[in-house]
């Protein structure tokens, strides 16, 4: 919810000091400063909020690891840069820039944020009654349904297929509301998917490693296949060269983030094997 509000702010903020429309096919370098300001307006308060909670709760509980704070701030910055600032602005006219935004908002940003364990941090900060409410929410049947790897993966990759292989991508550029909705979905589904594969926060409905591994591989495949499909059949309204560049960025950039996720996934398995009994030859 906070995301969508900030997103609208970012667009409104962009109007200052420029007389070109905020949404249009042409990108002016003169808009640069306003873009950076809108990015700062979105990212800084969220980063400060995370850092403040980390600092404040460290006085009462065990010290919050600096690596989590760093990961959280980096995640916020990457996600924010996809919806506000120069990259978001360029994404209005360039498919490649849009795709870089997708990699940040839907894949790398969520991965960093999942590692930052925001729910655990929230539990440390919330008063008892609110924490109980959050627990009940996490334990609910609805949470179980949407955080299941199969649901989360379908929402995540399915949403992308829908966006790029139908007229939704063209429609997104015509409507601000749709634009906001799609970006919120990309982030939320990306986060949901990453946390279902790599649970860092308390997750009462955790599923088995084999299921998570299989869903992860299938999702990566669906993402790569979509990348190659877009190379062959660019979304309506995109320049062919731009679309091909964007499709390759999607494929290889996706591989990069996938590799990070696979490494973390396997490392957790390796760590969990540590206490287990030895194996016979």
């Amino acid at each position, binding site marked *: 919810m906070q995301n969508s509000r900030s997103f609208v702010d970012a667009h409104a903020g962009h109007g200052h000091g420029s007389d070109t429309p905020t949404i249009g096919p042409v990108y002016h370098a003169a808009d640069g400063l306003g873009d950076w300001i809108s990015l700062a307006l979105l990212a800084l308060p969220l980063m400060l909020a995370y850092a403040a909670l980390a600092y404040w709760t460290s006085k009462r509980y065990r010290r919050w690891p600096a690596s989590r704070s760093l990961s959280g701030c980096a995640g916020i910055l990457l996600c924010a840069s996809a919806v506000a600032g120069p990259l978001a602005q360029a994404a209005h006219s360039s498919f490649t820039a849009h795709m870089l935004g997708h990699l940040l908002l839907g894949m790398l940003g969520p991965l960093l944020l999942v590692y930052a364990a925001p729910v655990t941090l929230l539990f440390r900060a919330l008063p008892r009654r609110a924490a109980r409410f959050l627990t009940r929410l996490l334990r609910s049947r609805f949470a179980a349904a949407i955080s299941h790897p199969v649901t989360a993966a379908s929402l995540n990759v399915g949403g992308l297929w829908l966006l790029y292989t139908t007229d939704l991508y063209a429609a997104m550029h015509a409507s601000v509301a749709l634009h906001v909705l799609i970006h919120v979905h990309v982030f939320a589904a990306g986060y949901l998917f990453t946390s279902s594969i790599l649970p860092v926060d308390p997750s009462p409905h955790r599923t088995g490693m084999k299921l998570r591994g299989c869903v992860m591989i299938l999702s990566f*495949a669906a993402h790569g296949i979509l990348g190659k499909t877009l190379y*062959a059949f660019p979304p309506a309204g995109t320049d062919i060269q731009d679309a091909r560049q964007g499709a390759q960025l999607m494929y290889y950039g996706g591989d990069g983030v996938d590799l990070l996720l696979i490494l973390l996934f396997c490392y957790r398995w390796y760590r969990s094997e540590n206490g287990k009994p030895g194996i016979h*030859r």
Partner: protein
Amino acid sequence: MNGYSSTAEKQPPREVGNGRSRSLVSGILFGIGCIAFVDEVVFHQLLHWHHFYDKSTTAAGLVSDGLLHAFSWFASVASLFLLADLRRKRAWIRSRWVGGILLGAGFFQLYDGIVHHKLMQLHQIRYGVEISVYDWTWNIAGALLLVAGIAMIVRTGGEKSETREQETMRAE
């Protein structure tokens, strides 16, 4: 005496796992990951014989290629973590592992050469040349890898587990 055996006895053998089969699985996964990596680096990036996308590619070919790519990406990482775990538990059997690599690489090469290149017509090894020479080289190389892998695994499969090393393991 041994911290391992006392706990291992309580567990059913299936859950405890087997160093022989795990060495093999790790090898097969590593073989698949390696040959996929070689394919991408040599034929796509260096020689430019293969392309990101070919017009002849069918939907089924795209799906098969995508699944294999994602799986091999996962396999190369997972196999090394499996290897690290085997070494940590002193249960790694090198000959099984190397046999697994040859088997995995041979299987991938043959699958790519026969199913992808010929049956699905996903793409060809090289364009603008007489292709049969390339196809035969490709598939014979794959078959040799596969046969060598199977031979190595069969040869080590009948062996009793290496008792001397087991004894040193028990002594620890």
